[in-house]
């Protein structure tokens, strides 16, 4: 297609999309232009798909047929961000936010709300969106969204994820058109540089500089690469972008191709993300169909195409040199740098590699200008950052906030605090490479440099909240298990270092720790930091070092008193029935998943400590508080 055709398509679809983005009254007015009385957006992201949103859509379609509804559009979108409430469904123009939908609920909503003259089904709305007086709060105004600023996620949960027309209607490819018609390659790079965009994959390297290096490198061929190997367990922002707005990534890669002089790109995506992979395949095919990928893009003399490569379950492939090895069909073992990918990357050609979230920030910068972008965030960290909020927090999901937003805002204002009134103990950022932020640092503005300064790191943006029931030694061990398992085994420091550190931590959590083990941990951790080949090994000790720094008392308790204060480390505790309190109701016995509890009705029960896996089911079911952890 030509630029004109693109602009026309965007204009045709603009109102349809706009209805979903503006306030209710205007939206109602605008809806009249679209040919649809209402639009029902159902989340088709991984979280909601897992909780059966597809069945909700199917039910809606069936009900529409039955009820003769033909002027309501069903839109299967990417992730809305509030995964814990899935499946999520939003009805526009009113912005009614239905949560935890079932097919039955869908049927009810169709019959009562979506039919002509229907009314919002308040009892099925997300509780926090209904005022005491019965009026509803539109989706965009609930606290979870109010404090956010969505740039990378701007189209996620807004457009039909598999429709290139909706993507174009929402503004995708406008930046590409601008670049191809009115900007020079250097102009593009300068814009990105001026915006102050830093890589969202973890290290925070300035993106524009990376592009510049690759442009300046000598090579008969160059590549653009998207790192979609989001390996941090507990981070899913890249997945959500790929599922919700894949075209923004394709567009940005094409822009980079133009800027650095590449004609081919690779997207390396985790195979564990089947929906993202599928949507990318569809997006690439449709972009090719529309001439937005391939030869002479938008009628220009610039050509660019993208290949999709699947990972196969190796965290280390998030490291760029390992990712390159994997694309080349080899074991994903990192290489020492230099040479950097900008000089020698995929198939030894100059390559620019950025992660998904970084790519998703490119088009808005081109469209709105570097000045706009750099006005957001802190001095050295510009723009917004997406965090995957998880763990012991009410609003598990994806949030995008300006750099410099405090942890407190994220956890309490957006995240809705911790469930069951539990105390915030720490937040873990940066995944296996990051560290724990204790409650004393709740007011720290979250940006690249501040997080590094307090011994954690931004990483890809995983943010796991922990409460008083989380043992910090156990968490350190969890991450070490992860890095030990995911170490590629190439360099000595990481291959053996992670194993030895894990050996020591295991000893400690089993109550066999000795005082000198704590010194050995520090020594090994420092060695790995200084002597490992790649970032995986260099940062693998971070979870231990930061927990030792902020929660040293827990380590001391484990080592000196053989106690686990959080009641997690199994070797250090045992479950016992207090015979004085036990009424012999058999509830614990019947709920024990491993048959470790025995006892007759109306007589005190007993726990076989050898069989017991300390899962806590008995405690959860006992009505008399008869089960005690010793």
């Amino acid at each position, binding site marked *: 297609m030509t630029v004109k055709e693109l602009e026309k398509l965007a204009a045709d679809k603009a109102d349809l999309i706009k209805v979903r983005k503006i306030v209710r009254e205007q939206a109602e007015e605008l809806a009249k232009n679209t040919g649809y009385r209402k639009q029902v957006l159902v989340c088709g992201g991984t979280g909601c798909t*897992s909780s059966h949103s597809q069945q909700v859509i199917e039910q809606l379609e069936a009900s529409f047929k039955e009820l003769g509804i033909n002027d309501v559009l069903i839109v299967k979108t990417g992730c809305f961000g509030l995964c814990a409430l899935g499946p999520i469904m939003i009805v526009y123009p009113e912005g009614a936010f239905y949560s935890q939908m079932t097919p039955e609920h869908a049927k009810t909503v169709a019959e009562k709300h979506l039919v002509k003259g229907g009314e919002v089904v308040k009892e099925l709305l997300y509780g926090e969106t209904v005022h005491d007086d019965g009026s509803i709060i539109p989706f965009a105004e609930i606290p979870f969204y109010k404090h956010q600023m969505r740039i990378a996620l701007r189209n996620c949960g807004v457009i039909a994820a598999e429709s290139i027309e909706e993507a174009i209607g929402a503004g995708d490819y406008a930046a590409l058109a601008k670049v191809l018609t009115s900007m020079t390659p250097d102009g593009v790079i300068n814009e990105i540089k001026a915006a102050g965009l830093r890589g969202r994959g973890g290290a925070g390297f300035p993106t524009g500089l990376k592009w510049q290096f690759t442009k300046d490198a000598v090579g008969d061929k160059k590549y653009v690469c998207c790192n979609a190997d989001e390996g941090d*367990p507990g981070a899913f922002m890249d997945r959500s972008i790929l599922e919700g707005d894949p075209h923004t990534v394709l567009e940005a890669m094409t822009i980079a191709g133009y800027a650095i002089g590449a004609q081919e790109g690779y997207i390396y995506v985790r195979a564990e993300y089947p929906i993202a992979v599928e949507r990318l395949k569809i997006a690439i095919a449709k972009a090719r169909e529309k001439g937005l990928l391939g030869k002479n893009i938008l009628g220009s003399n610039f050509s660019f195409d993208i290949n999709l490569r699947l990972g*196969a379950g190796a965290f280390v492939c998030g490291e760029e040199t390992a990712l390159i090895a994997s694309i080349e069909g080899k074991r994903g073992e990192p290489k020492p740098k230099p040479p950097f990918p900008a000089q020698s990357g995929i198939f030894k050609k100059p390559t620019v590699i950025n992660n998904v979230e970084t790519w998703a920030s490119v088009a808005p910068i081109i469209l709105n200008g570097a000045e706009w972008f750099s006005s957001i965030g802190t001095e050295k960290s510009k723009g917004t950052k997406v965090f995957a909020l998880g763990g012991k927090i009410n609003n598990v999901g994806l949030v995008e906030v300006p750099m410099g937003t405090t942890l407190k805002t994220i956890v309490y204002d957006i995240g809705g605090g911790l469930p069951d009134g539990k105390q915030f103990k720490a937040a873990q950022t940066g995944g296996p490479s990051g560290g724990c932020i204790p409650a004393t640092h709740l007011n720290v503005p979250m940006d690249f440099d501040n997080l590094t300064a307090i011994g954690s790191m931004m990483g890809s943006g995983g943010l796991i909240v922990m409460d008083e029931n989380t043992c910090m030694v156990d968490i350190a061990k969890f991450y070490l298990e992860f890095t030990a398992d995911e170490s590629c085994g190439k360099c000595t420091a990481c291959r053996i270092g992670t194993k030895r550190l894990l050996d020591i931590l295991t000893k400690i959590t089993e109550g066999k720790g000795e005082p000198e083990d704590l010194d050995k941990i520090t020594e090994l951790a420092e060695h790995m930091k200084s002597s490992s080949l790649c970032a995986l090994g260099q940062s693998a000790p971070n979870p231990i070092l930061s927990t030792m720094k902020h929660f040293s008392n827990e380590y001391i308790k484990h080592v000196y008193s053989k106690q686990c204060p959080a009641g997690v480390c199994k070797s250090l505790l045992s479950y016992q029935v207090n015979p004085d309190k036990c009424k012999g109701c058999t509830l614990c016995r019947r709920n024990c998943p491993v048959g470790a509890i025995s006892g007759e009705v109306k007589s005190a029960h007993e726990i076989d400590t050898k069989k017991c896996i300390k899962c806590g089911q008995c405690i959860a079911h006992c009505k008399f508080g008869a089960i005690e952890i010793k």
Partner: protein
Amino acid sequence: MANNLFDGTREQMNKLLDCIEQHKSDPGALMPVMHEAQNIYGYLPSEVQTVIADKLNVPLAEVYGVATFYSQFSLQPKGKHQISVCLGTACYVKGSDKILEVLEKELKIKCGECTPDGKFSIDSCRCVGACGLAPVMIIDGEVYGKLTSGEVNGILEKYMKD
């Protein structure tokens, strides 16, 4: 080296050969071919790896090295019902390790193994992205979220029957 249990069909082999033919000239064809081979066979039997090595002209040791590097490639056949427990951080802090432990005790196999009758296999995975439903386990693609260890046996029973 022959694996006596290998019982690939002609159709499967033809599919594999087609796929190799298709990718042969691509640079870095090995991984895409291995993915496809695993889709066809459910795992990567030694015979299949040999065919891949032969047709792509890479040493078998390299194919095997790649197969054993990536955790998604399996050298063992999987169970009729494939159970996967998420051990990502979000699931872990919500107790998915306990879920795994119940499964292991109930099916009397370790994570990564298959029951002798070929009915169940258990694997762990690193974050399927359903963090909002933590802790989760997946059986044959069906996601079971917000699990407690007490619910596991009931879910398993459904699959025991067939």
